[in-house]
């Protein structure tokens, strides 16, 4: 089982291409407020994660996801 920190590291690398403002990423970085991702870009990011871990991330979880840390927690739960 991959632990939370490893999920986090993957998410940092996966979102780097969309980090247009070149801000320093942390688990509290907000996908929308800090990174400025549009809804379409959030979905592209989600697809990268799904393909990497061979999981499907339900849209239902997205209202609870604000930060990279939130997403790492959800992905970890889905991949258990």
């Amino acid at each position: 089982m991959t632990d939370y920190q490893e999920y986090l590291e993957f998410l940092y690398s996966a979102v780097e291409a969309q980090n247009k403002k070149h801000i320093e990423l942390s688990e509290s970085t907000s996908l929308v407020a800090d990174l400025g991702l549009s809804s379409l870009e959030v979905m592209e990011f989600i697809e990268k994660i799904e393909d990497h871990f061979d999981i499907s991330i339900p849209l239902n979880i997205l209202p609870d996801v604000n930060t990279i840390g939130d997403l790492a927690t959800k992905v970890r739960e889905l991949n258990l």
Partner: protein
Amino acid sequence: MLFDKFQTMAGFQAELAERKVEPFGAVTEKILSATEGVVQGRNVILAGTNNYLGLSFDPRCIKAAQDAAARWGTGTTGSRLANGSFTEHQALETEIAQFYGKDHAIVFSTGYTATMGMCATLAGPGDVILLDADSHASIYTGVKLSGAEIIRYKHNNPEDLAKRLRRLGDRANQTLIIAEGIYSMLGDVAPLQEIAAVKREYGGYLFLDEAHSMGVLGETGRGAAQAAGVEADVDFFAGTFSKSLGAVGGFCVSSHPELEAIRFCISSYIFTASSSPSIIASTREALRIITAEPQLRERLWENANRLYDGLKSLGLPVGPSASPVVAVEMENRSRTIDCWKALMEAGVYVNLVIPPASPSTNFLLRNSVSAAHTSAQIDTIIAAYASLKTTGLITSTQAA
């Protein structure tokens, strides 16, 4: 503040007002025919409707509507479950079921409430919905209301659908798979043979929205599934009366007898007034016409191919194949608005589409074709686009 979230939209509206452009909700002051009108004071060719077969102005449909209004009154003033089920509504349900060769049908007041209501009701908590990423807003709204687990598959990608069904394991055969026949913004057709094959392999139920493909595709106009020869794999067909049939309303047909029980569970069916009898009557007449007159579809496709080939020959990015919807994709919002305005000034009304209504970050000049367009009108539309190139508003490289 409550209104903060609307500031971006308010700013966009202000920008449009400053540029004296009103692409959204452009008011039609007069309809001259199925393909011509007066919009914002200009005589224009209507190339941004969904009047695929031109039946909105068919004298037989108009007569049927007039007669029904005289006989039944202007409205039902009630829900289908209360006082709003007239024999006209029941007759249309029988006829739309027969049209699809199915035993069961529900008629809704709009296409939006049909797809939204069915998607909100068919799957519930504990079930899974797999929907195409580019699904219509009514489908997204419906699935959100369902309480089911919602998973997107990549647009028109049967391999991605299969992958996601595989991941579901034992839950796959309890999954509602949602696709559309023709996608409304780009006019692309779903690969239904492949999607049906995936469903046969993994199980599940297939819900197909034929809103833009009914009357347009298939030997008898039943849509994309008929054209692909996979109607037996579709559990639920949904569609609308507001496009090929030239009126307003929606439907769902199915072989599953459970549809009759489902009918009593759909909020958007129960808690809204039923369609006016005049609408139902013109829809019944239009359904009869599209069955009796396949030449309308032939004419539609002649026009679709003419427009597609014309815009493609100008070097514009118009998608991989001809369709009654021909969209020109552009990257720059301001330039797209300029093009829309120039097209209006040239006497051509098309749809301006901006994200998130467009399926990517691109902006669209969405053209739609009708069987009622003349070849000369199609050529005028092409010429208007050619002028955009001449004036430098659009080039092959700026678009796409």
